[in-house]
């Protein structure tokens, strides 16, 4: 994240600004285990039926599950549907 990242983080905390905007971090919303919504992603790294890896500013987001499908994909957001079992960040 570097030094400027640290300053930004502190600033965001002091001013109570949303961190996803100030720090350019992904915003992830899950609906049960049916759907996951990732805003502010940096591209797809791997895509198979049971594993999807998405590049983000805070590392690689790895989603494991069954019958995963990219419902929607544009530059800003991804919507993944299917049976999601695991979500995690890998450095």
């Amino acid at each position, binding site marked *: 994240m570097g030094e400027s990242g640290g300053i930004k983080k502190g600033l965001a905390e002091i001013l109570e600004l949303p961190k996803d905007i100030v720090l350019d971090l992904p915003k992830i919303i899950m609906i049960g285990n049916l759907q996951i919504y990732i805003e502010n992603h940096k*591209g797809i790294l791997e895509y198979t039926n049971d594993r999807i890896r998405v590049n983000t500013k805070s590392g690689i987001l790895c989603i494991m599950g069954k019958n*995963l499908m*990219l419902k929607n*994909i544009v*530059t800003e957001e991804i919507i993944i549907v299917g049976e999601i079992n695991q979500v995690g960040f890998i450095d």
Partner: protein
Amino acid sequence: MLVLKLWNYIRGYVIIRVEGLTLEKFINMCTVRNIYLWDVKRIGNTTLEAKLGVRGFKDLRKIVKKLGCKVSIYQKHGCPFWVHRLKKRKMLLTGAFFCFLLLIFASTFIFSIEVTGNEDVKKAEIVAKLNALGLKPGTNRYFVNLRKLENQLLLDINRLAWVGIELKGVKAKIEVVEKMIPPDTINKNTPCNIVAKKSGVIEKIIARNGDAVVEKGDIVKKGDILISGIVQLEPTEENILVHSHGEVYAKTYYEATKNRDLTEIKKKKTGQKVIKRILNLGNIELSFNKSEIPYEFYIIEKRSKKPLQWRKIGLPVEFITEEYYEAKKIRVTISEADAKNYVHKEALNDILEEIPFEAEILNTQVDFVVKDGVLYGKVIIEVLEDIVEQRILQIGED
């Protein structure tokens, strides 16, 4: 999302299959170049299925060249493809067009005739006349002159006062109003008698023409001659016939008897109730509850709701809520005053309908008798009214 799907359908989209080794890169390139992909599915190790707009598909070429993957169209969906397919089948289009034209043409013919408002004149008579005049099932609506037809129908059927013909779709609606035929009036030159319309006691007699036969105080029955049209001239003792007229006022009596039980069985709610909900769909009635009501006696309160109504147009849906209140029978005694009041009112209502508007009420008499728990009331009203009725003198009657 339905709107989005519909929009995509209108614009047209294709389902593509991409074969290659770097499919993730393919997706990323698409997003970078603003090609909108949706419903991306992985089919095999090297294949991917995705939906894509028609315009996006054209932009895909550059990516395909760069990545060296194979793209094939699996399915085509949406309006543009339909249009394209229809362009090839021109005869189908012309057929549909002519079918539509034929439908419009067929709807310009009159299919049925409906007559409303007739009471004495038979529907068959009106329809037969209309058929003869050129309005029958099978006539084209643009070949009949409705105004002319209305006038002709009025002339042909004497008993009609007004005719309105309206074409509603394929139906001809004929509305008629019949003439009210006035009672026969006797010509002023025709000799006639004046007879009593009702029985009564003569109070006043004014003979404007003709000979008064009765005097004040006489009791006359219905049909008795009051003023005779046969006048005897004094000097010659010769009879001449005149058109007699005049006014004869007589006291007439109207009576009515009514009765009412002094005890009454009333239903009283006990507080228990069962609610039954019914849904009416057109003519179909759907009940949501058990149909049996567990009470011996009950009072029903019904409420209905019709959703989505606008003026008279609306869905033929009606929600009915019926509330069944359990009831007990209770014997209630009514005070005599109340019963008398009720009986009096009922009797009066009956009588007042019979009394003519011009009559003058002189006297009312009310008698009550209680017998076996039942109140009998008798109301007599004495009325002063004109009882004149003209009747033609039959020649050779005298």
